[in-house]
């Protein structure tokens, strides 16, 4: 589904990604771990098409199509979803209104009519129940005054509403207490299917106890330096990133 080939990217004059290779197939869960500044969030942003990053070499391919010329919204229409580490606030725009706009824009791109209000309400009810979200929450302004946990839960709610093919969760566990973490992880697990894929970006192993990865990759200094199964995450937790850093140097 997703194929990243020798991807190099920079912001301003700083090279951040220095040759990433990654293949993610439908039905798989991949975890990308690594120390601060290793390029994890940059990788997520580049896949989503954030303009601020310049791809200097290599490419990102989704379902056989090079995404190079696609604007972020076009990538979204093709099924890429990014759960943001720091979701932005949009005052005066309710969660419901935002989702309605997002869904109908994606439908428009596929040549479909707006989703009928009744269907939309049903979808909202279904997904908010799944994620144990209070309906009152949905009429609040997007992310405005939300706690850290509410913001992340709202990201996963949006993921549930949009049903992406490829979901990238960028540090979704940061700022979550154990209950919120459990709810968010359960949500992601329920949304997993053989037709979609999830890439979990995380600093800690904690989230991976709930969302169990098929593959774990360790990112260091803009490159994937080690890949393995879920046991790699545990090993990292035990030995710390210095182990990888040292190994990389050797």
């Amino acid at each position, binding site marked *: 589904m997703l194929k990243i080939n020798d991807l190099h990217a920079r912001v301003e004059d700083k090279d951040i990604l220095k040759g990433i290779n990654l293949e993610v197939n439908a039905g798989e869960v991949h975890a990308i771990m690594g120390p601060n500044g290793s390029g994890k969030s940059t990788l997520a942003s580049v896949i*989503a*098409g*954030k*303009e*601020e990053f310049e791809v200097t070499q290599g490419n990102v391919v989704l379902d056989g199509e090079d995404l190079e*010329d696609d*604007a*972020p*919204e076009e*990538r*979204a*229409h093709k099924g890429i*979803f*990014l759960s*943001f580490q720091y*979701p*932005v606030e*949009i*005052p*005066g*725009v309710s969660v419901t*209104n*935002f989702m309605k*706009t*997002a*869904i109908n*824009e*994606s439908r428009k*791109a596929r040549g479909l009519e707006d989703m009928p209000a009744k269907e939309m309400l049903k979808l909202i009810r279904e997904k908010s129940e799944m994620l144990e979200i209070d309906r009152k929450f949905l009429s609040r*302004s997007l992310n405005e005054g939300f706690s850290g946990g509410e913001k992340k839960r709202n990201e996963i709610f*949006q993921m549930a509403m*949009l049903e992406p093919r490829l979901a990238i969760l960028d540090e979704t566990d940061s700022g979550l207490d154990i209950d919120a973490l459990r709810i968010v992880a359960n949500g992601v697990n329920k949304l997993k299917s053989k037709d979609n894929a999830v890439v979990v970006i995380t600093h800690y192993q904690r989230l991976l106890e709930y969302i169990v990865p098929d593959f774990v990759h360790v990112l260091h200094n803009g490159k994937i330096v080690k890949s393995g199964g879920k046991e790699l995450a545990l090993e990292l937790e035990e030995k710390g990133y210095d182990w990888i850093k040292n190994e990389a140097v050797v």
Partner: protein
Amino acid sequence: MAYTEEELKKELETKEYEYGFYTDIESETFPVGLNEDIVVAISRKKEEPEWMTEWRLEAFKAWKEMDEPEWANVQYAKPDFQAISYYSAPNSKPKYDSLDEVDPELLDTFKRLGISLDEQKKLAGVAVDIVIDSVSVATTFKKTLAEKGIIFCSISEAIKEHPELVKKYIGSIVPQKDNFYAALNSAVFSDGSFCYIPKGVRCPMELSTYFRINQAGTGQFERTLVIADEGSYVSYLEGCTAPSRDENQLHAAVVELIALDDAEIKYSTVQNWFPGGKDGVGGVFNFVTKRGLCEKNAKISWTQVETGSAVTWKYPSCILKGDNSIGEFYSIAVTNNYQQADTGTKMIHIGKNTRSTIISKGISAGKSQNSYRGLVQVNSRAKNARNFSQCDSLLMGNECGAHTFPYIEVKNKTAQIEHEATTSKIGEDQIFYCNQRGIETEKAIALIVNGFSKEVLNKLPMEFAVEAQKLLEISLEGSVG
């Protein structure tokens, strides 16, 4: 391609004025220039009684001695008042009873504006008094209103038919000498609307007037007078668009509202005069004086959506004379390219327990300058006066400006005054977030701007809110459009 700030800015600049077309209707236009003879000629043309002519002449005399104000945070080449023609009326003078009689080209103009009378008529209960180049050409729903004793007509007609009301109230809130533009308007106003709601009557429909400048080189001087008698209620809507022109057009309107004891007036405006080209050439100068008086327990609520004009100078105000009276001001002002707006309100608390609310939302894009200027004045006898003011500014790009000039004068220590202000910028992060959810940039900006303006949009009557939202999108679409 995703948008960078640079590209966004460029796109904002390329939006052409959507309503820039010109209707070719034969007009009767006075020679340019202003002197006593012209003032008298306007009055004669309108078959006004002697007292009205005298009143105009008094205003003209005062105006000659006055200087154009320079305190506003706007810069423009002052108009040459001797180069303007002060009267222009569509030729087909007699009023129409039905749409069939109206110049088809005129109807076409309205259709292009998306406000066709056909449509309007279908819209439940909206009476429309259209002012095109200063003279009313169509009035509908008049009969329904008459049954309630409501008078809704052009000011010219009111001067002839209801002189006692006009004589009593005209200039009572905005005196002839109030300011330079009000004096000019008092001398040369060509037409406008008049509305009287009798005691205890609740006006059954929203009253609306569409203004439109439509003749090259003519200024427009509207005069509006709304009187809500004791215990009555009226919601008045005013909206305007203007065709594209190279030279500057002057618009100096005066609006006076009188809310007698226990009465309520809601006055809503959507202003979309030609804002000038993206290079800052042309556009309307909009120098407006709007003021209302509240007697005991009365309420006046101003709501405005200002998207047009090259230069705007406008402060819809409330004089809270009666005890327990309420004044409200809800404003959205959008400036783009080289537009300049200096707008706000004055809340003058005179009576006891008077309350006022000010919500101002300024949106600046391009190289525009957007200023809020407001005065909250609590007089010594205004015990327990309360005011809440909130001024929010939204910036797009790095070349525009937002300014806030709040003035507070309090002479009674029981007053409670609150002022809140915020300034924010539409960030690349917000746009990217929306893009990532599949929302393209233009739509994202519309969404953010509508969210920002929501508190004010909510105050507009339903049928107007939709149009206003569309206008915001258009103004920012091109500018953002």
